[in-house]
Protein backbone atom coordinates (compact mmCIF):
# COMPACT_ATOMS: atom_id res chain seq x y z
CA UNK A 1 0.00 0.00 0.00
CA UNK A 2 1.11 3.54 -0.53
CA UNK A 3 2.65 4.93 2.59
CA UNK A 4 1.67 8.12 4.29
CA UNK A 5 3.69 11.14 3.21
CA UNK A 6 6.78 11.81 5.31
CA UNK A 7 6.94 15.36 6.61
CA UNK A 8 10.05 16.43 4.69
CA UNK A 9 10.05 19.75 2.92
CA UNK A 10 10.13 18.69 -0.77
CA UNK A 11 7.78 15.85 0.10
CA UNK A 12 5.17 18.36 1.19
CA UNK A 13 4.82 19.98 -2.20
CA UNK A 14 1.36 19.69 -3.59
CA UNK A 15 2.42 18.04 -6.83
CA UNK A 16 4.52 15.56 -4.92
CA UNK A 17 1.59 14.44 -2.86
CA UNK A 18 -0.94 14.60 -5.69
CA UNK A 19 -1.15 10.84 -6.31
CA UNK A 20 -1.64 10.10 -2.63
CA UNK A 21 -4.20 12.88 -2.27
CA UNK A 22 -6.03 11.60 -5.32
CA UNK A 23 -6.13 8.10 -3.91
CA UNK A 24 -7.41 9.37 -0.58
CA UNK A 25 -10.08 11.39 -2.32
CA UNK A 26 -11.17 8.36 -4.28
CA UNK A 27 -11.23 5.96 -1.36
CA UNK A 28 -12.08 8.33 1.49
CA UNK A 29 -15.83 7.76 1.41
CA UNK A 30 -15.48 3.97 1.67
CA UNK A 31 -15.84 2.05 4.94
CA UNK A 32 -12.52 1.37 6.62
CA UNK A 33 -12.58 -2.35 5.96
CA UNK A 34 -12.84 -1.86 2.21
CA UNK A 35 -10.35 0.95 1.88
CA UNK A 36 -7.06 -1.00 1.62
CA UNK A 37 -8.59 -3.33 -0.94
CA UNK A 38 -9.83 -0.51 -3.12
CA UNK A 39 -6.51 1.28 -2.73
CA UNK A 40 -4.71 -1.89 -3.87
CA UNK A 41 -7.05 -2.21 -6.82
CA UNK A 42 -6.42 1.44 -7.64
CA UNK A 43 -2.66 0.96 -7.65
CA UNK A 44 -3.03 -2.12 -9.85
CA UNK A 45 -5.23 -0.19 -12.25
CA UNK A 46 -2.77 2.70 -12.29
CA UNK A 47 0.19 0.45 -13.00
CA UNK A 48 -1.73 -1.36 -15.72
CA UNK A 49 -2.87 1.90 -17.28
CA UNK A 50 0.46 3.69 -17.13
CA UNK A 51 2.53 0.76 -18.29
CA UNK A 52 -0.04 -0.23 -20.89
CA UNK A 53 0.22 3.23 -22.39
CA UNK A 54 3.97 3.14 -22.01
CA UNK A 55 3.99 -0.13 -23.94
CA UNK A 56 1.81 1.33 -26.67
CA UNK A 57 3.97 4.38 -27.13
CA UNK A 58 7.22 2.49 -26.72
CA UNK A 59 6.35 0.49 -29.81
CA UNK A 60 5.72 3.73 -31.66
CA UNK A 61 8.85 5.40 -30.33
CA UNK A 62 10.89 2.36 -31.19
CA UNK A 63 9.65 2.32 -34.76
CA UNK A 64 10.15 6.06 -35.15
CA UNK A 65 13.64 6.06 -33.69
CA UNK A 66 14.68 2.99 -35.65
CA UNK A 67 13.34 4.75 -38.71
CA UNK A 68 15.26 7.95 -38.02
CA UNK A 69 18.43 5.96 -37.39
CA UNK A 70 17.91 4.31 -40.75
CA UNK A 71 17.14 7.68 -42.38
CA UNK A 72 13.43 7.21 -42.86
CA UNK A 73 10.49 8.78 -41.07
CA UNK A 74 8.86 5.78 -39.41
CA UNK A 75 5.09 5.47 -39.04
CA UNK A 76 3.49 8.85 -39.63
CA UNK A 77 0.18 8.19 -41.34
CA UNK A 78 -2.15 7.33 -38.48
CA UNK A 79 -2.99 10.56 -36.79
CA UNK A 80 -0.56 13.44 -36.33
CA UNK A 81 3.02 12.09 -36.28
CA UNK A 82 1.54 8.58 -36.31
CA UNK A 83 0.34 9.00 -32.74
CA UNK A 84 -2.64 6.73 -33.28
CA UNK A 85 -0.55 3.92 -34.70
CA UNK A 86 -0.49 1.80 -31.51
CA UNK A 87 -4.27 1.78 -31.43
CA UNK A 88 -4.48 0.83 -35.07
CA UNK A 89 -2.09 -2.00 -34.35
CA UNK A 90 -4.13 -3.10 -31.37
CA UNK A 91 -7.33 -3.19 -33.42
CA UNK A 92 -5.56 -5.14 -36.10
CA UNK A 93 -4.23 -7.67 -33.61
CA UNK A 94 -7.63 -8.04 -32.00
CA UNK A 95 -9.48 -8.65 -35.22
CA UNK A 96 -7.06 -11.21 -36.58
CA UNK A 97 -7.84 -14.86 -36.55
CA UNK A 98 -6.36 -16.77 -33.67
CA UNK A 99 -4.79 -19.87 -35.12
CA UNK A 100 -3.71 -22.79 -32.97
CA UNK A 101 -1.85 -25.55 -34.77
CA UNK A 102 -3.67 -28.86 -34.64
CA UNK A 103 -0.63 -30.69 -33.31
CA UNK A 104 0.06 -28.09 -30.65
CA UNK A 105 -0.31 -28.72 -26.96
CA UNK A 106 -3.54 -26.74 -26.66
CA UNK A 107 -3.37 -25.92 -22.96
CA UNK A 108 0.26 -24.84 -22.84
CA UNK A 109 -0.06 -23.00 -26.11
CA UNK A 110 -2.83 -20.92 -24.61
CA UNK A 111 -1.21 -20.56 -21.23
CA UNK A 112 2.19 -19.36 -22.40
CA UNK A 113 1.32 -15.76 -23.39
CA UNK A 114 -0.96 -15.34 -20.39
CA UNK A 115 1.69 -16.52 -17.95
CA UNK A 116 4.30 -14.40 -19.67
CA UNK A 117 2.35 -11.15 -19.42
CA UNK A 118 1.31 -11.88 -15.85
CA UNK A 119 4.87 -12.58 -14.77
CA UNK A 120 6.20 -9.50 -16.54
CA UNK A 121 3.64 -7.39 -14.73
CA UNK A 122 3.90 -8.59 -11.16
CA UNK A 123 7.49 -7.45 -10.84
CA UNK A 124 6.30 -3.86 -11.14
CA UNK A 125 4.50 -4.12 -7.82
CA UNK A 126 7.63 -3.48 -5.77
CA UNK A 127 9.12 -0.63 -7.77
CA UNK A 128 9.01 2.67 -5.90
CA UNK A 129 7.81 4.98 -8.65
CA UNK A 130 8.10 8.04 -6.49
CA UNK A 131 8.39 9.17 -2.93
CA UNK A 132 5.81 7.00 -1.10
CA UNK A 133 4.60 5.53 -4.37
CA UNK A 134 5.08 1.81 -4.15
CA UNK A 135 2.29 -0.68 -4.60
CA UNK A 136 3.59 -3.34 -2.24
CA UNK A 137 6.07 -2.68 0.52
CA UNK A 138 8.04 -5.70 1.67
CA UNK A 139 11.31 -6.64 3.23
CA UNK A 140 12.68 -8.82 0.43
CA UNK A 141 11.24 -6.95 -2.51
CA UNK A 142 14.40 -7.18 -4.63
CA UNK A 143 14.32 -10.93 -4.30
CA UNK A 144 10.62 -10.93 -5.15
CA UNK A 145 11.27 -8.97 -8.32
CA UNK A 146 13.88 -11.38 -9.59
CA UNK A 147 11.87 -14.43 -8.58
CA UNK A 148 9.00 -13.10 -10.67
CA UNK A 149 11.26 -12.22 -13.57
CA UNK A 150 13.13 -15.51 -13.64
CA UNK A 151 10.00 -17.42 -14.53
CA UNK A 152 9.37 -15.46 -17.72
CA UNK A 153 11.72 -17.61 -19.77
CA UNK A 154 9.72 -20.58 -18.54
CA UNK A 155 6.74 -19.11 -20.34
CA UNK A 156 8.84 -18.67 -23.46
CA UNK A 157 9.86 -22.28 -23.17
CA UNK A 158 6.21 -23.26 -22.86
CA UNK A 159 5.37 -21.29 -25.97
CA UNK A 160 8.18 -22.82 -27.93
CA UNK A 161 7.58 -26.36 -26.85
CA UNK A 162 3.79 -26.31 -27.07
CA UNK A 163 3.79 -25.07 -30.65
CA UNK A 164 5.07 -28.40 -31.93
CA UNK A 165 7.26 -26.66 -34.44
CA UNK A 166 10.95 -27.26 -34.86
CA UNK A 167 11.81 -23.59 -35.02
CA UNK A 168 9.81 -22.90 -31.91
CA UNK A 169 11.50 -25.74 -30.11
CA UNK A 170 14.93 -24.42 -31.06
CA UNK A 171 13.85 -21.04 -29.74
CA UNK A 172 12.74 -22.66 -26.52
CA UNK A 173 16.14 -24.29 -26.10
CA UNK A 174 17.87 -21.02 -26.78
CA UNK A 175 15.67 -19.20 -24.31
CA UNK A 176 16.61 -21.68 -21.62
CA UNK A 177 20.31 -21.51 -22.37
CA UNK A 178 20.14 -17.75 -22.39
CA UNK A 179 18.28 -17.59 -19.13
CA UNK A 180 20.61 -19.97 -17.34
CA UNK A 181 23.59 -17.96 -18.55
CA UNK A 182 22.33 -14.48 -17.82
CA UNK A 183 20.40 -14.99 -14.62
CA UNK A 184 23.74 -15.45 -12.88
CA UNK A 185 25.40 -12.12 -13.78
CA UNK A 186 22.07 -10.33 -13.36
CA UNK A 187 21.76 -11.46 -9.76
CA UNK A 188 25.48 -11.15 -9.01
CA UNK A 189 25.49 -7.55 -10.18
CA UNK A 190 22.68 -6.74 -7.78
CA UNK A 191 24.36 -8.28 -4.73
CA UNK A 192 26.92 -5.46 -4.14
CA UNK A 193 24.06 -2.95 -4.16
CA UNK A 194 22.33 -4.96 -1.46
CA UNK A 195 25.57 -5.20 0.49
CA UNK A 196 26.21 -1.47 0.31
CA UNK A 197 22.63 -0.41 0.97
CA UNK A 198 22.30 -3.08 3.65
CA UNK A 199 18.77 -3.93 2.67
CA UNK A 200 16.73 -6.07 0.30
CA UNK A 201 13.90 -3.58 0.18
CA UNK A 202 13.61 -1.31 -2.82
CA UNK A 203 12.44 1.67 -0.81
CA UNK A 204 15.44 1.41 1.51
CA UNK A 205 17.79 1.11 -1.44
CA UNK A 206 16.38 4.26 -2.98
CA UNK A 207 16.54 6.04 0.36
CA UNK A 208 20.20 5.02 0.70
CA UNK A 209 20.97 6.84 -2.54
CA UNK A 210 19.62 10.20 -1.36
CA UNK A 211 21.81 13.19 -0.79
CA UNK A 212 24.73 14.70 -2.64
CA UNK A 213 28.46 14.58 -2.15
CA UNK A 214 29.75 18.16 -2.04
CA UNK A 215 26.18 19.21 -2.88
CA UNK A 216 26.66 18.27 -6.53
CA UNK A 217 27.48 14.62 -6.99
CA UNK A 218 24.44 12.46 -6.22
CA UNK A 219 24.98 9.37 -4.10
CA UNK A 220 23.57 7.18 -6.83
CA UNK A 221 25.17 3.80 -7.04
CA UNK A 222 25.86 4.09 -10.75
CA UNK A 223 28.06 7.10 -10.00
CA UNK A 224 30.58 5.07 -8.01
CA UNK A 225 33.18 2.85 -9.70
CA UNK A 226 31.82 -0.44 -8.41
CA UNK A 227 28.28 0.75 -9.01
CA UNK A 228 29.01 1.70 -12.57
CA UNK A 229 30.49 -1.70 -13.25
CA UNK A 230 27.51 -3.41 -11.64
CA UNK A 231 25.15 -1.16 -13.60
CA UNK A 232 26.83 -2.06 -16.88
CA UNK A 233 26.70 -5.79 -16.12
CA UNK A 234 23.09 -5.44 -15.03
CA UNK A 235 22.07 -3.66 -18.21
CA UNK A 236 23.77 -6.20 -20.47
CA UNK A 237 22.15 -9.05 -18.57
CA UNK A 238 18.83 -7.21 -18.66
CA UNK A 239 19.10 -6.94 -22.43
CA UNK A 240 19.55 -10.70 -22.56
CA UNK A 241 16.81 -11.39 -20.04
CA UNK A 242 14.26 -9.37 -21.97
CA UNK A 243 15.31 -11.03 -25.24
CA UNK A 244 16.15 -7.74 -26.84
CA UNK A 245 18.51 -7.27 -29.71
CA UNK A 246 21.47 -8.02 -29.80
CA UNK A 247 20.48 -10.96 -27.60
CA UNK A 248 17.18 -11.75 -29.31
CA UNK A 249 18.26 -15.26 -30.17
CA UNK A 250 14.98 -16.97 -29.25
CA UNK A 251 13.17 -15.03 -31.95
CA UNK A 252 16.06 -14.59 -34.36
CA UNK A 253 13.92 -13.98 -37.42
CA UNK A 254 16.64 -14.63 -39.94
CA UNK A 255 17.31 -18.08 -38.55
CA UNK A 256 14.17 -19.24 -36.77
CA UNK A 257 11.36 -17.42 -38.63
CA UNK A 258 10.04 -15.93 -35.42
CA UNK A 259 11.23 -18.50 -32.92
CA UNK A 260 8.72 -19.19 -30.23
CA UNK A 261 6.29 -16.73 -31.87
CA UNK A 262 6.12 -18.67 -35.12
CA UNK A 263 2.84 -20.42 -34.35
CA UNK A 264 1.16 -17.49 -32.66
CA UNK A 265 -1.18 -15.04 -34.29
CA UNK A 266 -3.62 -12.31 -33.48
CA UNK A 267 -3.91 -11.14 -29.95
CA UNK A 268 -1.70 -13.82 -28.43
CA UNK A 269 1.11 -12.56 -30.62
CA UNK A 270 0.42 -9.05 -29.38
CA UNK A 271 0.55 -10.34 -25.82
CA UNK A 272 4.05 -11.62 -26.43
CA UNK A 273 5.08 -8.21 -27.62
CA UNK A 274 3.43 -6.61 -24.65
CA UNK A 275 5.33 -8.95 -22.35
CA UNK A 276 8.59 -8.11 -24.05
CA UNK A 277 8.12 -4.40 -23.54
CA UNK A 278 6.75 -4.79 -20.04
CA UNK A 279 9.70 -6.97 -19.10
CA UNK A 280 12.05 -4.40 -20.55
CA UNK A 281 10.28 -1.62 -18.67
CA UNK A 282 10.31 -3.61 -15.43
CA UNK A 283 14.01 -4.36 -15.67
CA UNK A 284 14.77 -0.75 -16.54
CA UNK A 285 12.68 0.39 -13.61
CA UNK A 286 14.67 -1.96 -11.39
CA UNK A 287 17.91 -0.58 -12.80
CA UNK A 288 16.73 2.95 -12.03
CA UNK A 289 15.83 1.88 -8.52
CA UNK A 290 19.04 0.03 -7.81
CA UNK A 291 21.60 2.17 -9.56
CA UNK A 292 20.21 5.52 -10.69
CA UNK A 293 18.81 6.73 -7.42
CA UNK A 294 15.19 5.76 -8.04
CA UNK A 295 13.01 8.83 -7.79
CA UNK A 296 15.76 11.06 -6.37
CA UNK A 297 16.41 14.29 -8.21
CA UNK A 298 19.93 14.70 -9.61
CA UNK A 299 20.38 18.12 -7.98
CA UNK A 300 18.96 19.61 -4.82
CA UNK A 301 17.64 22.67 -6.70
CA UNK A 302 15.66 20.41 -8.98
CA UNK A 303 13.70 18.81 -6.17
CA UNK A 304 10.67 20.95 -6.90
CA UNK A 305 9.94 18.62 -9.80
CA UNK A 306 7.92 15.75 -8.33
CA UNK A 307 9.73 12.51 -7.67
CA UNK A 308 7.63 10.37 -10.00
CA UNK A 309 8.55 12.67 -12.86
CA UNK A 310 12.23 12.04 -12.17
CA UNK A 311 11.58 8.34 -12.08
CA UNK A 312 9.75 8.56 -15.40
CA UNK A 313 12.55 10.53 -17.01
CA UNK A 314 15.20 8.05 -15.93
CA UNK A 315 13.06 5.12 -17.01
CA UNK A 316 12.46 6.64 -20.44
CA UNK A 317 16.17 7.34 -20.88
CA UNK A 318 17.01 3.73 -20.17
CA UNK A 319 14.31 2.52 -22.54
CA UNK A 320 15.66 4.82 -25.25
CA UNK A 321 19.03 3.23 -24.59
CA UNK A 322 17.48 -0.17 -25.27
CA UNK A 323 16.15 1.08 -28.60
CA UNK A 324 19.44 2.72 -29.49
CA UNK A 325 21.30 -0.51 -28.79
CA UNK A 326 18.81 -2.47 -30.85
CA UNK A 327 19.38 -0.14 -33.76
CA UNK A 328 23.13 -0.50 -33.55
CA UNK A 329 24.31 -4.00 -32.83
CA UNK A 330 23.95 -7.18 -34.84
CA UNK A 331 22.71 -10.32 -33.19
CA UNK A 332 25.18 -12.58 -31.39
CA UNK A 333 25.61 -16.25 -32.06
CA UNK A 334 24.54 -18.62 -29.30
CA UNK A 335 28.12 -19.60 -28.43
CA UNK A 336 29.18 -15.96 -28.34
CA UNK A 337 26.23 -15.24 -26.11
CA UNK A 338 27.06 -17.85 -23.49
CA UNK A 339 30.76 -17.08 -23.77
CA UNK A 340 30.15 -13.43 -23.04
CA UNK A 341 28.20 -14.34 -19.96
CA UNK A 342 30.39 -17.03 -18.43
CA UNK A 343 33.80 -15.72 -19.39
CA UNK A 344 33.24 -12.03 -18.96
CA UNK A 345 30.15 -10.91 -17.11
CA UNK A 346 30.16 -13.53 -14.36
CA UNK A 347 33.84 -13.03 -13.36
CA UNK A 348 33.42 -9.27 -13.62
CA UNK A 349 30.39 -9.39 -11.36
CA UNK A 350 32.18 -11.67 -8.91
CA UNK A 351 35.16 -9.33 -8.64
CA UNK A 352 32.74 -6.48 -8.34
CA UNK A 353 31.09 -8.25 -5.42
CA UNK A 354 34.35 -8.01 -3.49
CA UNK A 355 34.73 -4.44 -4.67
CA UNK A 356 31.29 -3.56 -3.35
CA UNK A 357 32.09 -5.30 -0.09
CA UNK A 358 35.24 -3.22 0.32
CA UNK A 359 33.23 -0.09 -0.42
CA UNK A 360 30.69 -1.02 2.22
CA UNK A 361 33.42 -1.79 4.76
CA UNK A 362 35.12 1.56 4.18
CA UNK A 363 31.92 3.57 4.40
CA UNK A 364 33.29 5.74 7.23
CA UNK A 365 36.40 6.92 5.39
CA UNK A 366 36.28 10.65 4.88
CA UNK A 367 38.48 13.41 3.52
CA UNK A 368 41.65 12.14 1.87
CA UNK A 369 40.70 8.58 2.77
CA UNK A 370 37.57 8.99 0.64
CA UNK A 371 39.77 9.69 -2.36
CA UNK A 372 41.78 6.57 -1.60
CA UNK A 373 38.52 4.65 -1.32
CA UNK A 374 37.47 5.88 -4.74
CA UNK A 375 40.83 5.00 -6.16
CA UNK A 376 40.72 1.46 -4.78
CA UNK A 377 37.23 0.97 -6.12
CA UNK A 378 38.16 2.30 -9.55
CA UNK A 379 41.17 0.02 -9.62
CA UNK A 380 38.90 -2.88 -8.73
CA UNK A 381 36.86 -2.15 -11.83
CA UNK A 382 39.45 -1.21 -14.42
CA UNK A 383 42.02 -3.94 -13.80
CA UNK A 384 39.65 -6.91 -14.03
CA UNK A 385 37.94 -5.30 -17.00
CA UNK A 386 41.20 -5.03 -18.91
CA UNK A 387 42.25 -8.59 -18.13
CA UNK A 388 38.87 -10.11 -18.82
CA UNK A 389 38.44 -8.13 -22.01
CA UNK A 390 41.82 -9.31 -23.18
CA UNK A 391 40.99 -12.95 -22.54
CA UNK A 392 37.53 -12.56 -24.07
CA UNK A 393 38.75 -11.02 -27.28
CA UNK A 394 41.81 -13.28 -27.57
CA UNK A 395 41.70 -14.88 -30.98
CA UNK A 396 38.92 -12.55 -32.07
CA UNK A 397 41.15 -9.84 -33.47
CA UNK A 398 39.90 -7.42 -36.07
CA UNK A 399 39.21 -9.32 -39.24
CA UNK A 400 41.15 -8.60 -42.37
CA UNK A 401 39.02 -8.93 -45.42
CA UNK A 402 40.64 -10.32 -48.49
CA UNK A 403 38.84 -9.93 -51.74
CA UNK A 404 39.26 -12.23 -54.68
CA UNK A 405 41.67 -10.70 -57.14
CA UNK A 406 40.36 -10.44 -60.67
Amino acid at each position, binding site marked *: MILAAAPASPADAWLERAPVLLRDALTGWLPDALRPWVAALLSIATILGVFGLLFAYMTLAERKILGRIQNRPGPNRTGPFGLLQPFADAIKALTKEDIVPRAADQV*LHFLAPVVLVALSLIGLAVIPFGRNLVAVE*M*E*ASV*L*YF*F*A*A*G*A*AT*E*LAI*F*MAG*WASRNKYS*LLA*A*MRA*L*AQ*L*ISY*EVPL*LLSVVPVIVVAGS*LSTTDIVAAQGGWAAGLWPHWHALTPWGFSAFAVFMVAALAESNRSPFDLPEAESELIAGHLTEYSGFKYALFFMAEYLGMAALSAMAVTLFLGGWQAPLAVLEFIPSYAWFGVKLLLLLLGFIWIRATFPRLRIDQLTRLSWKFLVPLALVNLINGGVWAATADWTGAAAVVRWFISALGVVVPFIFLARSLSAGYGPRTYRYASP
Partner: protein
Amino acid sequence: MTLLLAVLALVCLVPAVAAVLVRNLIHSALLFVLAWLGLAVFYLAVGAEFIAFAHALVYVGGVSMVVLFAVLLTRPGRVDPLPPPSTQRAIGGVAAVALVASMLGSSIFWTRLPSMEPIPMVSLRRLGELLAGPYLVALLLVGLILTVALIGGLLLAAPRRPSEGGDA
Protein backbone atom coordinates in the same frame (compact mmCIF):
# COMPACT_ATOMS: atom_id res chain seq x y z
CA MET B 1 -5.80 -20.16 8.06
CA THR B 2 -6.39 -23.90 8.13
CA LEU B 3 -8.48 -23.60 4.99
CA LEU B 4 -5.70 -21.67 3.29
CA LEU B 5 -3.18 -24.29 4.29
CA ALA B 6 -5.44 -27.04 3.01
CA VAL B 7 -5.82 -25.30 -0.34
CA LEU B 8 -2.07 -24.79 -0.52
CA ALA B 9 -1.47 -28.43 0.32
CA LEU B 10 -3.75 -29.35 -2.56
CA VAL B 11 -1.93 -26.93 -4.85
CA CYS B 12 1.35 -28.56 -3.93
CA LEU B 13 0.29 -32.17 -3.86
CA VAL B 14 -2.03 -32.49 -6.85
CA PRO B 15 0.57 -31.28 -9.39
CA ALA B 16 3.22 -33.37 -7.66
CA VAL B 17 1.17 -36.54 -7.93
CA ALA B 18 0.11 -35.65 -11.46
CA ALA B 19 3.75 -35.07 -12.34
CA VAL B 20 4.58 -38.63 -11.39
CA LEU B 21 1.62 -40.05 -13.28
CA VAL B 22 1.66 -38.20 -16.59
CA ARG B 23 3.46 -39.79 -19.48
CA ASN B 24 4.80 -36.58 -21.03
CA LEU B 25 8.11 -35.66 -19.41
CA ILE B 26 7.80 -31.96 -20.21
CA HIS B 27 4.34 -31.91 -18.67
CA SER B 28 5.62 -33.48 -15.51
CA ALA B 29 8.48 -31.00 -15.33
CA LEU B 30 6.03 -28.12 -15.69
CA LEU B 31 3.74 -29.67 -13.10
CA PHE B 32 6.70 -29.81 -10.74
CA VAL B 33 7.18 -26.10 -11.32
CA LEU B 34 3.58 -25.62 -10.26
CA ALA B 35 4.17 -27.68 -7.12
CA TRP B 36 7.26 -25.61 -6.31
CA LEU B 37 5.28 -22.45 -6.77
CA GLY B 38 2.66 -23.79 -4.37
CA LEU B 39 5.42 -24.44 -1.87
CA ALA B 40 6.69 -20.87 -2.29
CA VAL B 41 3.20 -19.53 -1.65
CA PHE B 42 3.03 -21.76 1.41
CA TYR B 43 6.21 -20.21 2.78
CA LEU B 44 4.74 -16.81 2.10
CA ALA B 45 1.56 -17.75 3.92
CA VAL B 46 3.43 -18.76 7.05
CA GLY B 47 5.43 -15.55 7.00
CA ALA B 48 8.77 -16.72 5.68
CA GLU B 49 9.04 -14.08 2.99
CA PHE B 50 12.71 -14.50 2.27
CA ILE B 51 12.56 -18.28 1.96
CA ALA B 52 9.52 -17.98 -0.26
CA PHE B 53 11.18 -15.70 -2.78
CA ALA B 54 14.49 -17.49 -2.63
CA HIS B 55 12.65 -20.73 -3.21
CA ALA B 56 10.76 -19.31 -6.17
CA LEU B 57 13.93 -17.80 -7.60
CA VAL B 58 16.01 -20.93 -7.28
CA TYR B 59 13.44 -23.58 -8.09
CA VAL B 60 11.06 -21.90 -10.50
CA GLY B 61 13.75 -19.77 -12.09
CA GLY B 62 16.76 -22.04 -11.97
CA VAL B 63 16.15 -25.69 -11.24
CA SER B 64 13.15 -25.91 -13.56
CA MET B 65 15.29 -24.64 -16.43
CA VAL B 66 17.96 -27.22 -15.73
CA VAL B 67 15.38 -29.99 -15.52
CA LEU B 68 13.76 -28.94 -18.79
CA PHE B 69 17.13 -28.64 -20.42
CA ALA B 70 18.06 -32.09 -19.27
CA VAL B 71 14.78 -33.51 -20.57
CA LEU B 72 15.22 -31.88 -23.93
CA LEU B 73 18.83 -32.95 -24.31
CA THR B 74 18.42 -36.54 -23.21
CA ARG B 75 17.84 -39.03 -25.95
CA PRO B 76 14.79 -41.12 -25.14
CA GLY B 77 15.99 -44.57 -24.10
CA ARG B 78 14.61 -47.82 -25.40
CA VAL B 79 11.13 -48.35 -24.08
CA ASP B 80 10.41 -51.86 -22.87
CA PRO B 81 8.00 -53.35 -25.35
CA LEU B 82 6.07 -55.13 -22.60
CA PRO B 83 5.23 -53.46 -19.31
CA PRO B 84 6.15 -55.66 -16.35
CA PRO B 85 3.37 -58.00 -15.15
CA SER B 86 0.79 -56.44 -12.89
CA THR B 87 1.81 -58.41 -9.82
CA GLN B 88 5.32 -57.03 -10.11
CA ARG B 89 3.99 -53.57 -10.51
CA ALA B 90 1.77 -53.96 -7.48
CA ILE B 91 4.68 -55.19 -5.39
CA GLY B 92 6.82 -52.30 -6.57
CA GLY B 93 4.07 -49.81 -5.73
CA VAL B 94 3.56 -51.23 -2.26
CA ALA B 95 7.29 -51.22 -1.61
CA ALA B 96 7.60 -47.59 -2.72
CA VAL B 97 4.66 -46.48 -0.58
CA ALA B 98 6.04 -48.37 2.41
CA LEU B 99 9.44 -46.79 1.99
CA VAL B 100 8.10 -43.25 1.74
CA ALA B 101 5.64 -43.85 4.56
CA SER B 102 8.31 -45.18 6.87
CA MET B 103 10.52 -42.19 6.12
CA LEU B 104 7.83 -39.53 6.41
CA GLY B 105 5.70 -41.33 8.97
CA SER B 106 8.00 -40.67 11.87
CA SER B 107 8.09 -36.96 11.25
CA ILE B 108 4.36 -36.77 10.53
CA PHE B 109 3.14 -38.83 13.48
CA TRP B 110 5.69 -37.98 16.13
CA THR B 111 5.72 -34.23 15.60
CA ARG B 112 3.33 -32.42 17.89
CA LEU B 113 0.78 -30.66 15.79
CA PRO B 114 0.09 -27.35 17.56
CA SER B 115 2.43 -25.56 15.20
CA MET B 116 -0.30 -22.96 14.79
CA GLU B 117 1.04 -21.02 17.74
CA PRO B 118 2.27 -17.58 16.70
CA ILE B 119 5.25 -17.99 14.43
CA PRO B 120 8.26 -16.02 15.63
CA MET B 121 8.87 -13.40 12.97
CA VAL B 122 12.53 -13.48 12.06
CA SER B 123 13.60 -10.32 10.33
CA LEU B 124 15.71 -10.55 7.27
CA ARG B 125 18.61 -8.87 9.02
CA ARG B 126 18.49 -11.38 11.86
CA LEU B 127 18.41 -14.19 9.30
CA GLY B 128 21.52 -12.84 7.65
CA GLU B 129 23.31 -12.44 10.97
CA LEU B 130 22.47 -16.01 11.90
CA LEU B 131 23.69 -17.33 8.57
CA ALA B 132 26.90 -15.35 8.72
CA GLY B 133 27.44 -16.11 12.41
CA PRO B 134 26.57 -19.43 14.09
CA TYR B 135 25.64 -21.18 10.87
CA LEU B 136 28.54 -19.94 8.80
CA VAL B 137 30.36 -23.28 8.87
CA ALA B 138 27.23 -25.13 7.81
CA LEU B 139 26.64 -22.66 4.99
CA LEU B 140 30.19 -22.98 3.74
CA LEU B 141 30.04 -26.77 3.96
CA VAL B 142 26.85 -26.83 1.91
CA GLY B 143 28.52 -24.65 -0.66
CA LEU B 144 31.53 -26.93 -0.71
CA ILE B 145 29.41 -30.04 -1.17
CA LEU B 146 27.53 -28.41 -4.01
CA THR B 147 30.77 -27.37 -5.70
CA VAL B 148 32.19 -30.85 -5.37
CA ALA B 149 28.97 -32.29 -6.78
CA LEU B 150 29.16 -29.86 -9.69
CA ILE B 151 32.75 -30.78 -10.50
CA GLY B 152 31.95 -34.46 -10.15
CA GLY B 153 29.02 -34.07 -12.49
CA LEU B 154 31.20 -32.30 -15.01
CA LEU B 155 33.82 -35.06 -14.81
CA LEU B 156 31.19 -37.72 -15.34
CA ALA B 157 29.55 -35.91 -18.22
CA ALA B 158 32.63 -34.68 -20.04
CA PRO B 159 33.42 -36.75 -23.11
CA ARG B 160 36.59 -38.75 -22.58
CA ARG B 161 39.38 -38.19 -25.00
CA PRO B 162 40.43 -41.27 -26.91
CA SER B 163 43.99 -40.86 -25.61
CA GLU B 164 42.73 -41.59 -22.12
CA GLY B 165 41.45 -44.95 -23.22
CA GLY B 166 37.82 -44.20 -22.48
CA ASP B 167 35.07 -45.97 -24.32
CA ALA B 168 32.86 -42.95 -24.72
